[in-house]
């Protein structure tokens, strides 16, 4: 049973990243009608906000120590980060909290990136076919990632969570199970909560503010809202910025989980599109739901029967279910690698417009 709960937890945790990216993608699609292939790159840029801040905080003063030599015969460099040299203890804390602090950096930066992108490029593509939108944003994604590569190199750059938020949490004990059965990394739970907060925030924003109401009306019928004399374009620009911020924040908080490198965006791009399509193009709720669903699917297909498994007589109900599941998986080698795509195919064939999609969206 604990194994099943653990995989569900893991699926939700995986899904929260998917949901966040897909949410932004759907926001852009729903409001602006633009298929943004550069969305993965925005996620990647968010992650590199953290890297940059971290680099900034750990900028070091280099002192050559003439008394010690490196293996290749030059004087040893003694490096101390400036912040530590200047602020001492507080500086160390600053460095340690670099990841959560990057949120403060990422919000304005990503907003700026998003707005610039919309005004400078995307704006000119509203009237163009979807294929061209896909292509120009795809080109942009390549350019962005190559710039990041030229700047930061190709290797992943590790970021660590603050110690206070690291380590393992005993989740099982918290819900009244035997201690130590369901433990999960604290940071991943933080990520899950963070995703929950952001998603709720976006929904509330759209649901309860006048701004959000206008935007939702615009999503439903852009022309009519335009006729009411409301400048919908400005609001849509802001929505693009917001979507960029959501993607960026998803990237910032993801860095301790996955060391960021320039290719991060492309890795998530295909996946996030699958999530959006499974959820239904233009449906925010669908995107979030599909994100979590696919996360759980991925998590469950990755299981394998361990050599130490109780015999039929000693099994609990949970283990019986697991046993059946393991047996199914044994007949489907490699299923974990294609499950996302398989799910997309099945959903699209059974429910043509995705789980929660509306009719007529993006069908031509």
């Amino acid at each position, binding site marked *: 049973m604990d194994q099943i709960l653990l995989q569900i937890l893991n699926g939700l945790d995986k899904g929260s990243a998917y949901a966040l990216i897909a949410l932004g993608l759907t926001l852009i699609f729903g409001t602006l009608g633009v298929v943004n292939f550069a969305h993965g790159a925005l996620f990647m840029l968010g992650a590199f906000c953290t890297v940059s801040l971290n680099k900034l905080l750990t900028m070091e003063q280099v002192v050559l120590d003439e008394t010690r030599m490196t293996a290749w015969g030059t004087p040893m460099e003694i490096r101390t980060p400036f912040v530590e040299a200047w602020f001492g203890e507080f500086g160390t804390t600053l460095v340690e909290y670099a990841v959560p602090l990057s949120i403060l950096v990422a919000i304005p930066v990503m907003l700026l990136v998003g707005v610039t992108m919309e005004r400078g490029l995307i704006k000119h593509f509203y009237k163009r076919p979807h294929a061209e939108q896909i292509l*120009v944003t795809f080109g942009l994604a390549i350019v962005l990632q190559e710039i990041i590569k*030229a700047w930061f190199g190709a290797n992943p750059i590790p970021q660590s969570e603050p110690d206070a938020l690291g380590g393992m949490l005993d989740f099982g004990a918290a819900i009244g199970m035997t201690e130590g059965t369901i433990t999960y990394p604290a940071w991943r739970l933080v990520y899950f909560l963070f995703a929950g907060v952001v998603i709720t925030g976006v929904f509330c924003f759209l649901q309860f503010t006048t701004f959000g109401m206008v935007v939702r009306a615009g999503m439903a019928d852009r022309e009519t809202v335009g006729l009411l004399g409301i400048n919908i374009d400005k609001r849509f620009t802001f929505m693009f910025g917001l979507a960029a911020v959501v993607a960026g924040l998803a990237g910032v908080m993801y860095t301790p989980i996955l060391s960021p490198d320039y290719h991060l965006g492309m890795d998530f791009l295909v996946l996030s599109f*699958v999530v959006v399509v499974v959820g239904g193009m233009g449906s925010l709720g669908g995107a979030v739901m599909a994100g979590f669903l696919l996360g759980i699917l991925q998590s469950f297909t990755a299981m394998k029967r361990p050599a130490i498994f109780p015999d039929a007589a000693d099994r609990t109900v949970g283990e019986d279910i697991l046993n059946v599941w393991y047996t199914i998986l044994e007949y489907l*080698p490699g299923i974990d*690698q294609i499950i996302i*795509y*398989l799910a997309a*195919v099945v959903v699209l064939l059974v429910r043509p417009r995705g789980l929660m999609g509306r009719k007529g969206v993006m069908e031509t």
Partner: protein
Amino acid sequence: MNAKASSRNDLYLILGFIVAVALGPIIMTPFGGYPDLLQKFAIFGIFAIGFNILFGLTGYLSFGHAAFLGAGSYAAVWCFKLVGMNVLPAIISAMIVGGLFSALIGFVSLRRSGIYFSILTLAFAQMCYNLAYSVLGQPGMNLTNGETGLQLKLDDPRYFGESASESGTIPPTSMFGIEMKQIHEFDLFGMTVQVSNGYFVCALFVILAFYVSMRIFRSPFGMMLRAVKTNQNRMSYTGLNTRPYALAAFVISGMYAGLAGGLMSAMDPLAGAERMQWTASGEVVLMTILGGAGTLIGPIIGAGVIKYLENIFSSFNDQVMTGFFDFLPDWLGSAMVWITSPFVGEGWHLTLGVIFMLIVIFLPGGLMEGFARIGRLFRGSRKRGEGAADAPRVPAE
């Protein structure tokens, strides 16, 4: 439009194409061309021509065409392993396998249109890639040899050929005794031109592929495909069943992809899984758009540009760039090297991305639209007053 004139234009077009393909090795030599690159031009040209039949005519944007190319190359290598080293059966079986795969995937994917279709094809192709990379390459059920790619071995049976040549090596791919990798060299205008036998085979196929594509473009079937792109509703209320038209286009382009894959294996008998990856599918989309989707020549030009960037641009290192800016004063030379170096060598992707964005933004009709505009500019300045508005919006072919 005069029917006779347009059929004469087509004749000129195909003749011009044949001449260009025949002179390719000579034209490309000063620009760093070499046999393998020229073969790539032809092979990816075929791939793009085929993709264009689907995307350019019907407007269905497939993000999974690389799967058919990959399936075709696996089929061809298996043919080399089991049948013999003659390239013809290999190429034919590659086309058949490409066609079968595309019929299967197309039948399912074409139930949806728009981006849903794109995602479906993408999903199928990624499934093929992932399975080919891992599960199908494992000992026991080794169809693809996984990451390394399917290679020939000395102990392959080759039931209708020889397993190993007399000298104990794997026999080279050949067509009735003519070895594909054999290279001829001759001097012309002070440069040494290299041509391989493989290029002749590729050239033959690219000419055939181009000719067939031209027939399709001019045929009622081609017109129907353009109708599919423009208005599917009208088509069905006109008594036409759109699905088989789209599927036929899909399968034809799948067979083109299979042919390209088969030729790739014929030139270099190895089939790797990464040929099926979605980025490879994206590449053929880039080629087609770059050159001009829906035009006859455009996709081939696009294929050439991208392969040139990939193979020649990526080989420019600082050493080469410094040499290139030799004629400039030292400080200016190093400044130029500094400016250009992010765009060449390992930065060739950046160049590709920038060029591609510029094309999509300013020339949605691709390079062919650019040529047409330049052409109009000249004509316009010669006979001013006739009005540029008359110029047809359809891209030149």
